[in-house]
């Protein structure tokens, strides 16, 4: 870099650029907050869904699965599992773990109560109805 471009110029560009883009990001965030309610399925955010989210979190489901593509990549995507498998299959599946099949990936049994299972299913139903811009590409997730 030539001598005409000084350190103080670089510093000013740093502060100016950072402030400008941080403000732009805040503006976009503000706009997103207005737009998200049209897509986030909050109408179906029932007490059962809220409880289900807690079941999801306190059993660290994200440690193996993805939810809308975010999480670990060891086990299937669950953002659309409600549409893929339906409520009864999900409950039966969770209750029958671990399979114990030799050499196969194992899911622990979390000893969920019937209420917790229903709440979790409600949470997965709510999640599957969020407008995700048509992601994932197909039902397999």
């Amino acid at each position, binding site marked *: 870099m030539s001598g005409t471009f*000084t350190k103080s110029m670089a510093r000013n560009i*740093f502060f100016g650029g*950072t402030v400008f883009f941080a403000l732009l990001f805040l503006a976009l965030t503000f706009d*997103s907050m207005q737009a998200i309610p049209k897509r*986030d399925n909050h109408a179906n955010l029932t007490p059962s869904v809220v409880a289900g989210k807690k079941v999801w979190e306190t059993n660290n489901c994200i440690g193996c699965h993805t939810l*809308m593509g*975010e999480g670990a990549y060891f086990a299937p*995507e669950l953002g659309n599992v409600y549409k893929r498998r339906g409520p009864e299959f999900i409950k039966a599946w969770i209750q029958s773990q671990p399979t114990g099949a030799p050499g196969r990936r194992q899911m622990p049994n979390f000893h969920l109560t019937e209420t917790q299972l229903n709440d979790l299913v409600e949470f997965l139903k709510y999640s599957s109805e*969020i407008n995700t811009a048509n992601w994932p590409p*197909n039902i397999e997730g």
Partner: protein
Amino acid sequence: MQYSSQSVAKPYFIAAIGLFLGQILFGLIMGLQYVIGDFLFPAIPFNVARMVHTNLLIVWLLFGFMGAAYYMIPEETETELYSPKLALLMFWVFLVAGAATVLGYLLVPYATLAQYTGNDILETMGREFLEQPLLTKIGIVVVALVFLFNLTMTMLKGRKTSIGLVLMMGLWGLAVFFLFSFYNPSNLVMDKYFWWWVVHLWVEGVWELILGALLAFVLIKVTGVDREVIEKWLYVIVTLSLVTGIIGTGHHYFWIGTPEYWQWWGSVFSALEPIPFFAMTVFAFNMVNRRRREHPNKAATLWALGTGVMSFLGAGVWGFLHTLAPVNYYTHGTQITAAHGHMAFYGAYAMVVITIISYAMPILRGRAANSEKAQVMEMWSFWLMTVAMVFITLFLTAAGILQVWLQRYSATPIPFMAAQDQLTIFYWLREGAGVMFLIGLLVYIASFFVGGNEKAKAA
């Protein structure tokens, strides 16, 4: 060492390396579980191993950053640390809190851990990378605030350099954005939106300021190039980082219920995110080529150059690979993401912490540089770990491409586990590369115990 209080950095660096070893061991367990699904089940289920793997990574990098700051700030400000005692106290607090948290993950079912640690008071647990119990999260905030107080007080009474300023801004930013980990609304879209304010604004935002400052500091020391020149570069690099990285957050807002204009904002700005990393590579090589002294610590110079190259490849190239919305539509949440994550974290953050350790540790042990023999060994560890990471990344990328094809792109998509079964060969190869990485890390640790000859005495 110029200032005696710099010595508080030493335990931080030792802890960082110890936790790094733990991280890699759990990585190998998980890698094996990818192919031998019931390995160590039910003692260590995959989700527990992953939590330990990623949390140890974060904690050892934080130890590295804190050690780096305690080492650098006295030299940059030309004054002793405000309170070395406080720094040592916080070391033990952080280490004990970290160890207790990991033991909690390993010994107690996660739901029970949540119940006993106050998750019912404020629900923050069970989100990727932010799995820590409430108590640990509060502990992190306390340690960070005391740490920042200590350094800010040091800064106020001493010389204010650009490197010091950029470093402090990065560290303050780290603490401020961590506060979003306490915000966990029931609305999943809102939860995810602000979860990224911790995760993305850390690694593609404020952490890059820390990265730049550490690299600039070491380059001044090992090349002897004029501070004015290096600090000017630093400002240019961190400008590019934040200008691209802040709006670049948008590449996480494609498919989580956020407005679709983010597909444009996210794609365009994150496509520019490789530029600061490219600038960092050019910067490192340029400064080393223009060096005005032959510093005896060749290993540190190698790590500094490696940081530039590997962060550009891992964060820059592998990030760009799947950041454009039409591509990300197919690759989102696959092994492609894992490939990028591994090389980016290693190339940018693991390597820059090792760079500062490589430079500072010999000085903390009373010599300008380690013996020739120890340095050769350290350079072997550089190549073993770095080449291993390249292979880990390539095998995961191959697995990811195949996964995308089988599960998402082909005319007849197959279920997740059916696709996984066909990726086995790549997972085995990745595990092999992982073993090579572990060997490299063991060689690295061994290099600290190779005797120094008397040639290079304290500078």
